[in-house]
């Protein structure tokens, strides 16, 4: 036991004396959160939109003028056909289309109620959401204005649709996404590098030759990174709550427990990688490429999974980060309890058990 404690202390020395590692560990989360937070939700300016006015009446003219007056939009007027909308989006540049049906003014006047359709490019969910919010706000504002003038209850219903990404998930998704990504980097990459470094410096041979149980080497290596990961997790939560105003709606303790589970998954992966490589570069490349790319692609925080080919959706199931992402989204953003995430938790726990078992089994008590 004393050996383990001394070993763990040594690992902390390594971490705190290596500026580069420390920078990676605490710099990446901060950079990522700020980058994603501000780059992805910053205000939209001069977004290209098309207004297809099939009514051409006073009301639609007034609304169009209001939209044009805003600095957010660069308006093109065109009588675009419903069938051509997708082609127009595909050409690029275009962010949003507003369609007034031909009876807009008449409906508003006679029925007190009219519809307007807003179609946005959902493949860029943040921009799409921002734009539709602005447009809806402008239309609601107009509705209040005419209602007040005539004392009649006019109602304009904007019907919003996202092309490519119907649910427009993404606006808040980056916090759980960054969590998954950062934990993956810190736990997987740094753990594997820490073990492989011992191989490179020749100290692994001494450790093997010592009476200290080889498996304990792995545990001693993993514990400091577990502690550090929890610290980093806390840092990200604090940043997202106090800097980005993303609230934690669910139970914080549930969030911690789930995160510790995911951290253990990542640590197991890191140990598994370290078993198979002998150089720090390979370990780092393997963790970065083999683990980060799938995390970015298959968790659904960068690219909506729903729009991926079926085969990718199937593959995504074996990426641990995907399940963690779902859990964090449910607990943190939607405020759901354990009863809603137990299935995902079970999947993640199962994966962890398998990975850990393989890592421990493959850890050699000899060199080759």
């Amino acid at each position, binding site marked *: 036991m004393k050996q383990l404690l001394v070993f763990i202390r040594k690992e902390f020395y*390594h971490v705190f004396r290596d500026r580069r590692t420390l920078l990676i560990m605490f710099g990446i989360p901060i950079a990522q959160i700020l980058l994603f937070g501000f780059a992805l939700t910053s205000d939209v300016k001069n977004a290209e939109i098309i207004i297809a006015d099939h009514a051409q009446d006073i009301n639609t003219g007034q609304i169009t003028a209001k939209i044009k007056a805003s600095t957010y939009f660069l308006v093109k007027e065109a009588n675009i056909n419903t069938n051509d909308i997708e082609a127009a989006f595909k050409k690029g540049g275009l962010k949003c289309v507003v369609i007034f049906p031909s009876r807009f003014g008449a409906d508003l006047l006679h029925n007190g109620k009219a519809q307007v359709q807003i179609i946005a490019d959902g493949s860029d969910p943040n921009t799409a959401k921002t734009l539709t919010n602005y447009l809806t706000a402008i239309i609601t504002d107009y509705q209040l204005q005419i209602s007040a003038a005539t004392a009649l209850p006019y109602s304009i219903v904007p019907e919003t649709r996202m092309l490519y990404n119907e649910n427009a998930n993404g606006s808040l998704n980056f916090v759980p996404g960054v969590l998954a990504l950062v934990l993956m980097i810190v736990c997987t990459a740094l753990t594997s590098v820490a073990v492989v470094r011992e191989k490179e410096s*020749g*100290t692994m041979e*001494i*450790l093997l*030759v010592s009476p200290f149980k080889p498996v304990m080497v792995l545990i001693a290596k993993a514990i400091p990174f577990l502690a550090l990961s929890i610290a980093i997790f806390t840092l990200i939560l604090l940043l997202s709550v106090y800097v980005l105003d993303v609230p934690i709606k669910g139970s914080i303790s549930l969030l911690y427990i789930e995160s510790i589970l995911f951290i253990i998954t990542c640590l197991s992966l890191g140990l598994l990688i370290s078993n198979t490589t002998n150089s720090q570069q390979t370990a780092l490349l393997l963790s970065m490429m083999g683990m980060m790319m799938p995390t970015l692609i298959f968790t659904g925080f960068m690219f909506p999974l729903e729009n991926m080919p079926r085969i990718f959706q199937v593959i995504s199931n074996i990426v641990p980060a995907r399940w963690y992402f779902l859990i964090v989204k449910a607990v943190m953003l939607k405020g759901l309890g354990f009863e809603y995430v137990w299935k995902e938790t079970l999947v993640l726990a199962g994966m962890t058990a398998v990975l850990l078992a393989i890592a421990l089994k493959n850890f050699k008590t000899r060199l080759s």
Partner: protein
Amino acid sequence: MKAVTLKNITKTYDKGKVLAVDDVTLQIDRGELFGLIGPDGAGKTSVFRILTTVLLADKGSASVDGFDVVKDYQSIRRRIGYMPGKFSLYQDLTVKENLGFFATLFGTTIEENYALIKDIYEQIEPFKNRRAGKLSGGMKQKLALCCALIHKPEVLFLDEPTTGVDAVSRREFWEMLKRLKQQGITILVSTPYMDEAVLCERIALMQNGKIMSVNTPQHIIATYPVPLYAVKSGNIYKLLNDLRKSELVESSFAFGEYLHVTLKNNDAAGAGNLRNHIAAQGHTNIEVSVMAPTIEDSFIRLTNKKQGSFAQA
């Protein structure tokens, strides 16, 4: 009981393509200072790794301190000290932290076995708060030896401890080994420096995975089969080329200031004939004398014998 035994040990890499250790049989007595002498790639490190139980041999059996390297590897690991060739300690830990860490790892304390390392540790103690990465080669090597000794091992394995270390530090290191031997520790040391061979009690000369000879260095030198001549002239490079073309000469190698020459005909007139021959080639300032061979001469002769020729390089 022998401290170390190897019986028909064979080890290959790359699925049998590279033969690293070729049927090696060897016994080392308790308390012996034994040297494994050979160039890089001779198989020294593989032998060390098999004995320290971190590598499995393909064939053969081996034991350390009476324990089998495969079955009883855990018992062996408790009884040996090991300094691997590339061993560089933890560069970011201080001298004291490194030593303390290894002491705890082996279930002991610095104080408990301080007597054993006192001599060596006192030399690096002034730098005990310096990080290992900032030490010189000689200092690092001393620290590494302390770390390998801290748990009072029965057998000490030192894989090329003096490689890349300057001549002064090397000599000091060998003096430390002699003192350790007096404490009754069996020491197995490997080196590519042939001149270090005479500092061992017994040596094994290794080349291409095979042991060519095992004996005391004195015996190996004494059994050099033919007279060896140290030869010199004003133009050493021309002399080397002339001798290699000569009918009289069996082998001729440059050894520092002199050429070491063996003759095909080893009768009493050898030296005289050689001198006349050289003089006839127009050389000046000629020196020819019979000399005592070195381990390196023996090694070269054994290597060439193995390759089935005395081809002149």
